[in-house]
């Protein structure tokens, strides 16, 4: 009797260890799959970009020409547009998101928390094409007739930085695209900031309040240091979205392969250029140049994420030491 049960449990144990191994290898397979997919994307991008990079060499990232007629391509203006719109989006999005998140976690009356919180999540659920349509049909005309002439007549007249806000008011351009992107990244940054702010133990905050700290001091000196990894993560998520966003930008950026001296001027971004031109691109060089743009976007995103990781590591080291 006992011997029998022992053998049974022995076979059970064998089965369990087999199951464990199967489970382990299955999960490991999925994890490696991610690396394989990423590597595959990278390899095919490089492969597709080779003809363009081989023809233009380093000129590809230093020239502004984009001429399908003569088959000359350079990536400077889409790179500039991508970085500039993302920068404007961050300049707009981060302070507003921070404000909303602080209000929701520290200051809002309980009855207001839920509706505002849900509204922000709904904002994140709006498809980007809707932002594009809204940007073009609602925002751009209002912007063209009110805010833009105002900016041109005020900041535009200031020497040096005035150039950035000069030029005819078309309502669309790099600046508009940046503003729309800023609104689009709001919910991502806000909801992550709110979630991480809520992880701060009440005891810690209450201790600070007990020492006579103001709300501002609590947020700045207790909540933010405690949650900085999460906050940076949220900002990076927003930045990643701003760099890669396609549809909404295509609607309002002006889709012009030029770097205007003004932020108001039409421009283009990498993803907008690819989305606009890929279907109709004829000839190996043209298609290859668009794929090379994709490769550059891949690099930009990768670099941004890597820098964020390094920054976080530095911050942790400093606080640890």
């Amino acid at each position, binding site marked *: 009797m006992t011997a029998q049960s022992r053998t049974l449990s022995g076979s059970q144990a064998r089965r369990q260890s087999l199951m464990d191994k199967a489970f382990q290898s299955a999960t490991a397979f999925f994890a490696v799959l991610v690396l394989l997919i990423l590597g595959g994307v990278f390899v095919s991008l490089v492969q597709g970009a080779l003809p363009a990079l081989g023809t233009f060499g380093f000129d590809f990232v230093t020239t502004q020409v984009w001429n399908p007629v003569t088959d000359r391509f350079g990536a400077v203006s889409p790179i500039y547009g991508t970085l500039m719109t993302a920068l404007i989006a961050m300049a707009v999005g981060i302070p507003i998101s921070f404000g909303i998140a602080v209000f929701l976690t520290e200051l809002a009356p309980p009855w207001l928390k839920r509706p505002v919180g849900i509204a922000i999540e709904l904002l994140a659920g709006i498809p980007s094409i809707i932002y594009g349509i809204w940007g073009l049909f609602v925002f751009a005309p209002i912007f063209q007739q009110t805010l833009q002439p105002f900016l041109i007549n005020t900041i535009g007249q200031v020497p040096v930085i005035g150039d950035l806000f000069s030029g005819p008011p078309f309502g669309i351009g790099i600046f508009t695209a940046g503003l729309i992107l800023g609104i689009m990244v709001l919910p991502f940054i806000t909801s992550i900031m709110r979630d991480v702010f809520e992880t701060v133990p009440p005891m810690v905050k209450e201790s600070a309040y007990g020492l006579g700290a103001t709300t501002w001091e609590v947020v700045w000196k207790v909540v933010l240091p405690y949650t900085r990894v999460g906050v940076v993560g949220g900002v990076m998520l927003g930045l990643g979205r701003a760099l890669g966003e396609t549809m909404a930008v295509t609607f309002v950026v002006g889709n012009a*392969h030029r770097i205007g001296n003004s932020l108001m001027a039409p421009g283009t971004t990498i993803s907008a250029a690819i989305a606009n031109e890929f279907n109709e691109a004829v000839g190996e060089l043209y298609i290859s140049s668009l794929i090379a743009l994709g490769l550059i976007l891949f690099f930009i995103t990768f670099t941004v994420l890597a820098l964020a990781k390094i920054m976080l590591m530095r911050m942790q080291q400093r606080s640890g030491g």
Partner: protein
Amino acid sequence: MTIISKTVIRSAIAGLAGIVLGSSAYAQNISGAGATFPYPVYARWAQAYQQETGTNINYQSIGSGGGIRQIKEKTVTFGASDSPLKPEELEQAGLVQFPMIMGGVVPVVNVPGIQPGQLRLDGPTLANIYLGEITSWDDDAIKALNPDLQLPDLAIAPVYRSDGSGTNFLFTNYLSQVSEDFKEQVGSNTSVQWPTGLGARGNEGVAAQTSQIQGAVGYVEYAYAKQNQMTNAVMKNKDGQWVEPNSETFQAAAASADWSANPGYYVILTDQPGAKSWPITGASFILMHRQPQDPAASQSALRFFHWAYMNGDQMADELDYVPMPDKVVDQVEQTWTTGFAEVNGEAMWTGGQQ
């Protein structure tokens, strides 16, 4: 409830069967891809043709460049392009090309106080606007063409198609013909490097941007201008006459074209002579392989094109396209009999009564 779900299941099964049986049972599926310019009329024809014959035509309007690429890669039965391939290109790729439908590209403007058909423009002025040399609506060059109009001191926002398109090809081809500067600095293609202005995707994008931005000027396929009630401009044609865009002036431009003298129907209808000719008129072309992998599908496609030539004129008219003249249709069908490789010792096309 149960009836509905039964129908759903049945149609799902039928659909699955269609996929599984594939080409043998459903050889009546024709796939095409290309130009956005003729899409409305192709879609209309396809719908009517399916009702009549059960044959399904799946046309993807991905743009002329995409159409040329897809047919070269043999992923579709036919490709469509507004920018005709040159005879040597056709020869090289083993393609047969023929015109299917014609239409016009129309400059549209958004200037306060200007009504449709009031603003007069000529080619050189339009070229200078798109070159960035004329930047304000009260420029002397525009004033000279419009002595009776009150033109505001408003910045001109030239809007162009940012995607490569046949509409771009027709527009830049026209401007290159009337302006040496434009020809040198920009050239003509389905996609060019514009020295100024802002881009929008597709006819609908240009229509939307032009309607949204005060001071904008754009160019769209005529149906878009008409359906969106946009402010079209009146153009001066090669004979120095002012013409309105409509099927009459498109037809006038098409009438003088000599299709028979051009191998591969390589005819571009911009800047045509004739007192009534609209200057930016163009044909849209179909591209098919001389020696298709699936001759049965190509034969089905030819039957559809034949049907469209014979029965599609009124539908085209309603959508403001210009049907091909009967003489050209006869000539095209001649091309079909001789242009394709033989299938089992017989011509691919032996007339409409197949």
